[in-house]
């Protein structure tokens, strides 16, 4: 039997081609993402291990602030600790480290030198020790105020040379420096720009205080373990600080990077998952059709005495071969994909050598597991069907296409899953708890996807009767034959369309959710933002006092109200704690933002020690006006807030859905080093806002890290951020659609083979080549549009349910992206036409006589 399987596999290799391609794509994404993340992880593990000292002593913080909403306060410890560290027995070297990420470096033309997307600009003190990850390649070390080193990658990117003048906009103020040397990484540059100053300059200019450090780094003498040294230092300094060994420090550095790399990894695995899902349909269809075509052959095998088990096994063996071939090619494609990703990262400044690509053993194991298991699972049902072929099939002359089999079991199963899915989605829409709703939504999406796949073939007849109803009228008999052909085998048409359905349902669902979010933000901005202008950095990054002062000095303003972020860990009445993004607003808030209150007012919100929170959050956590809320700031300070007001939650525009707002005075009291993250500016009566904008922009020209935005700009900014996310998702789903198109091509190609005699007959009685091609094209379009209609239907249901869930988070607007809907429908016609190209060509080239005589 093995030989028979092998022969059969080789004989049908052309027909297996598209299935192999589907396996290849899925495996390529699995392997590619694993290789990529392994490579990046090893590179960074090495970097972090090399940059971290044996033991690092840093200021104690209560928690680490989010990168996105940070107060801007830089935690420090006294530099004098260095002497106490040095006195510890077993220290080979110790040094103070002053590193900040809140400085902006600007060249002579006023352009930012550091990266503007993602990676930070790091300003730090220059110190040399044996394992330093950077070394001086030209010039000399910085000596005194006004001298700086720049890293080689940044220098190359921005064409900086020794002697160039730069401006550094730091928290305490702006200061000029001259480049006196270039330092290069001995390992991989993670993409950041580095600026080195000498230690006293760093203290004075970056932190604004002499005698402080952001950490103290100590190395052990040879033979002494990091942990042992840590214990000795802890004993000397006491528990008032954070201590980390090299391993711990590297791990925590890696953790902060992991969120970013994790996103890439999960996006890639998402690609893989969708590719696998869609590929399954393609494989199921291929095997079903191959078996339908070989019914007689299988009947003969059975007649000659092959057992059912043997027939089933022989089909599964073919699937195994397909899986192995697809996985092997997929693994190779995965390596190429990983190399491409690494190069792509290089464009963003992260220089990882593709030559150091890591292929650990789990990668091929996962690749083969995915490829082979998926193929076997997909081929299992067709294999069982093959085993059921009766020996009589060898003798009968009837067309066996599996059209007549009852769909009743499917109808019952489909109805059950559909009901469950409807239940879950309704539950998600009706739920008032956001996390419950989200998990119900996830369950509902999964169940309704299964329901769509199960019910798809049942919908073929009614839907295609309607969709294709116009075909006979428009295209005459050719249209009629196409429509009937699409209806001929509902299972096959359903499975082919399902593949397309999945991708399009996700696109539609995501775009409903995205558009709704976008329009909710628009509403929130309209409702909550009352100022003429907002001065803000990219990504809500806080900026120095200097910028706020500059804005205040611009003539023609009536209000300049700052906003800061004050992340806090609050203790709720239930005893549990929650990390909230508090927002602190300056006096005059009512002139620039429109907060809507259920109880209380702005004055009660901004009073020292008072807060306001969203009414819904208060209800959920049993908080009332006058409730006392213990809070912990990142710097370790504690406060007990009193709830002074309850808002409708529209203040969530400025923080998270708890909408915790406080007065600027409260933030300054507990977070004295916090920085403004936004300034809301109103034009004075009689001042033309346009003129004010021009003068604001002129005044802020030296500070390229902030921009002046009016409401329209602000909306565009938010919309842009959402559309970047959507574009990523669309890109992801493009792959699913490509595979679905392969599926349509596959089905049509195999159908053409299956209907060879029919095509021969049609040609004999006078169907022209053009008409034949049109017949196949129309069938393809009908299948594609059917898939699109199912996908759109499912996607809109998902979108509506997701919108109900988003509404719980304050995003109440609903926007249906009709242009996307129309584009998807039009696109599906194009998909159908493209998919039919090759099969139609092949059919029209058939020799009429050979086709008629075809068995």
């Amino acid at each position, binding site marked *: 039997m093995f030989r028979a399987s092998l022969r059969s596999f080789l004989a049908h290799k052309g027909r297996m081609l598209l299935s192999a391609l589907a396996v290849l794509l899925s495996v390529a994404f699995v392997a590619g993402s694993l290789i990529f993340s392994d490579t990046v992880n090893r590179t960074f593990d090495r970097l972090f291990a090399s940059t971290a000292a044996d033991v690092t002593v840093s200021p104690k913080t209560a928690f680490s602030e989010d990168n996105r909403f940070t107060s801007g306060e830089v935690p420090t410890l006294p530099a004098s600790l260095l002497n106490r560290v040095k006195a510890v027995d077993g220290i080979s070297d110790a040094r103070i480290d002053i590193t900040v990420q809140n400085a902006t470096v600007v060249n002579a033309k006023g352009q930012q030198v550091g990266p503007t997307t993602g990676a930070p600009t790091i300003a730090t003190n220059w110190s040399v020790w044996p394992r330093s990850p950077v070394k001086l390649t030209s010039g000399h070390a910085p000596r005194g105020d006004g001298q700086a080193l720049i890293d080689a990658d940044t220098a190359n990117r921005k064409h900086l040379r020794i002697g160039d003048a730069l401006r550094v906009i730091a928290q305490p103020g702006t200061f000029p420096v001259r480049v006196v040397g270039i330092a290069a990484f001995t390992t991989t540059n993670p993409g950041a720009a580095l600026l080195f100053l000498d230690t006293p300059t760093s203290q004075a200019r970056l932190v604004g205080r002499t005698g402080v450090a952001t950490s103290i780094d100590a190395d052990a003498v040879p033979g002494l373990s990091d942990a042992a040294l840590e214990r000795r230092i802890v004993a000397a300094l006491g528990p008032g600080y954070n201590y980390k060994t090299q391993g711990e420090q590297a791990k925590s550095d890696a953790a902060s990077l992991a969120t970013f790399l994790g996103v890439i990894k999960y996006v890639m695995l998402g690609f893989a998952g969708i590719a696998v899902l869609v590929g399954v349909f393609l494989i199921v269809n291929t095997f079903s059709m191959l078996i339908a075509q070989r019914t007689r052959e299988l009947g003969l095998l059975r007649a000659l005495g092959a057992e059912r088990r043997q027939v089933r096994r022989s089909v599964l063996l073919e699937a195994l071969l397909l899986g192995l071939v697809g996985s092997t090619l997929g693994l190779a494609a995965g390596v190429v994909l990983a190399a491409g990703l690494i190069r792509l990262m290089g464009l963003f400044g992260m220089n990882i050598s593709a030559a150091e690509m890591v292929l650990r053993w789990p990668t091929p194991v996962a690749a083969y597991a995915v490829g082979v298991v998926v193929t076997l699972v997909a081929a299992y049902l067709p294999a069982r069907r093959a085993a059921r072929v009766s020996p009589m099939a060898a003798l009968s002359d009837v067309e066996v296409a599996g059209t007549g089999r009852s769909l009743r079991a499917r109808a019952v199963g489909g109805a059950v899953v559909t009901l469950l899915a409807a239940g879950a989605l309704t539950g998600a829409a009706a739920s008032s708890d956001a996390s419950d709703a989200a998990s119900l939504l996830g369950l509902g999406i999964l169940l309704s996807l299964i329901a769509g796949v199960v019910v798809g073939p049942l919908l073929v007849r009614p839907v295609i009767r309607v969709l294709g109803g116009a075909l006979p009228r428009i295209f005459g008999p050719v249209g009629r034959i196409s429509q009937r052909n699409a209806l001929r085998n509902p299972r096959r048409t359903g499975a082919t369309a399902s593949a397309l359905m999945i991708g399009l349902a996700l696109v539609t669902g995501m775009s409903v959710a995205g558009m709704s979010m976008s329009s909710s933000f628009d509403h929130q901005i309209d409702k909550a933002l009352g100022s003429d202008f907002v001065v803000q950095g990219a990504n809500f990054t806080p900026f120095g006092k200097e910028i706020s002062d500059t804005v205040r000095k611009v003539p023609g303003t009536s209000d300049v109200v700052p906003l800061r972020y004050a992340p806090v860990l609050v203790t709720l009445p239930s005893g549990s704690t929650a990390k909230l993004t508090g927002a602190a607003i300056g006096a005059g808030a009512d002139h620039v933002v429109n907060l809507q209150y259920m109880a209380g007012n702005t004055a009660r919100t901004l009073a020292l020690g008072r807060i306001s929170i969203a009414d819904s959050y208060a209800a959920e956590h049993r908080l009332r006006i006058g409730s006392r809320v213990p809070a912990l700031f990142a710097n370790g300070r504690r406060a007990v807030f009193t709830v002074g007001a309850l808002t409708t939650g529209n203040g969530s525009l400025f923080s998270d859905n708890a909408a915790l707002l406080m007065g600027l005075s409260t933030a300054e009291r507990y977070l004295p080093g916090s920085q403004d993250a936004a300034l809301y500016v109103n034009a004075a009566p009689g001042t033309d806002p346009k003129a004010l904008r021009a003068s604001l922009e002129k005044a802020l020209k030296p500070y390229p890290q902030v921009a002046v935005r009016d409401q329209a700009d602000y909306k565009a900014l938010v919309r842009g951020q959402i559309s970047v996310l959507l574009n990523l998702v669309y890109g992801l789903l493009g792959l699913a659609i490509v595979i679905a198109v392969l599926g349509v091509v596959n089905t049509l190609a195999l159908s053409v083979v299956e209907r060879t005699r029919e095509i021969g*007959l049609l040609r004999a009685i006078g169907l022209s080549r053009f008409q034949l091609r049109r017949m196949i094209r129309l069938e393809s379009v009908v299948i594609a549009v059917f898939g699109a209609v199912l996908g759109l239907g499912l996607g809109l249901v998902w979108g509506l349910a997701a919108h109900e869930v988003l509404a719980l988070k304050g995003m109440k607007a609903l926007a249906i992206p009709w242009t996307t809907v129309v584009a998807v429908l039009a696109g599906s016609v194009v998909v159908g036409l493209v998919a039919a190209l090759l099969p139609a060509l092949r059919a029209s080239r058939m020799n009429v006589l050979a086709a008629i005589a075809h068995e």
Partner: protein
Amino acid sequence: MSTPVDAAAWPQATAARAQGLSKTYGTGETHVVALDAVDVEIGRGRFTAVMGPSGSGKSTLMHCLAGLDSVTAGRVWVGETELTRLAERALTRLRRDKVGFMFQAFNLLPTLTAEENITLPMDIAGRKPDQEWLDRVIDTLGLRDRLKHRPSQLSGGQQQRVACARALASRPELIFADEPTGNLDSRAGAEVLRFLRDAVDELEQTVVMVTHDPGAAAYADLVLFLNDGRIVDEIHGPTAEAVLERMRLLSGGSPQAPGLDGLRKS
């Protein structure tokens, strides 16, 4: 396409004809001569049967006359049109408008009803069928109550009658039937042959039938015998016995039993 001379020479009496028609396949060792300079005329309004042992070239002759296959040498006319000069597209049109086909099996599109199958060539051409003629054909073949059935709901004999009706429906110059009874039992086969006979006698159609079965050939007005790619004999007004006798002479022994033919072909 046709010259006035051609048209004048064979005005009405001939539905199709071939002149020096040759067809060869392959080269060298696999070189096969299927037709060897055949001259033949198919009389209009007559029922012609083509017989011969396996490999005698009878199917090839039919395919070449019907414009399904290209010829190696010689000329072929259907009505006044010379097929051998036509391009693919015009040839397709000719098959659609001037020729009716019946094959041994798989004559009908499974997705279409009997009626849709019957009118298919005219539908493809975008022409309205002549309803009066269509009714006559349908009634002659006794298909009136089967029109809405799909092929899978019809017996083998009924399917062949539908195929026959389709071949007749557009009033073609001539109808080619390739072993139309090959897959049928003797009763259903006889029925189909009687309808072909009726098509000639009552509907004034021209039928060319390729067959193995002397009994089937006996329904024809004229039987042409092929051997090794040449027409070697003919019988006017044949009987089954006469045909059987002639076949025996041709093959130099006993002819194949008609009952076995069906199996060999399937």
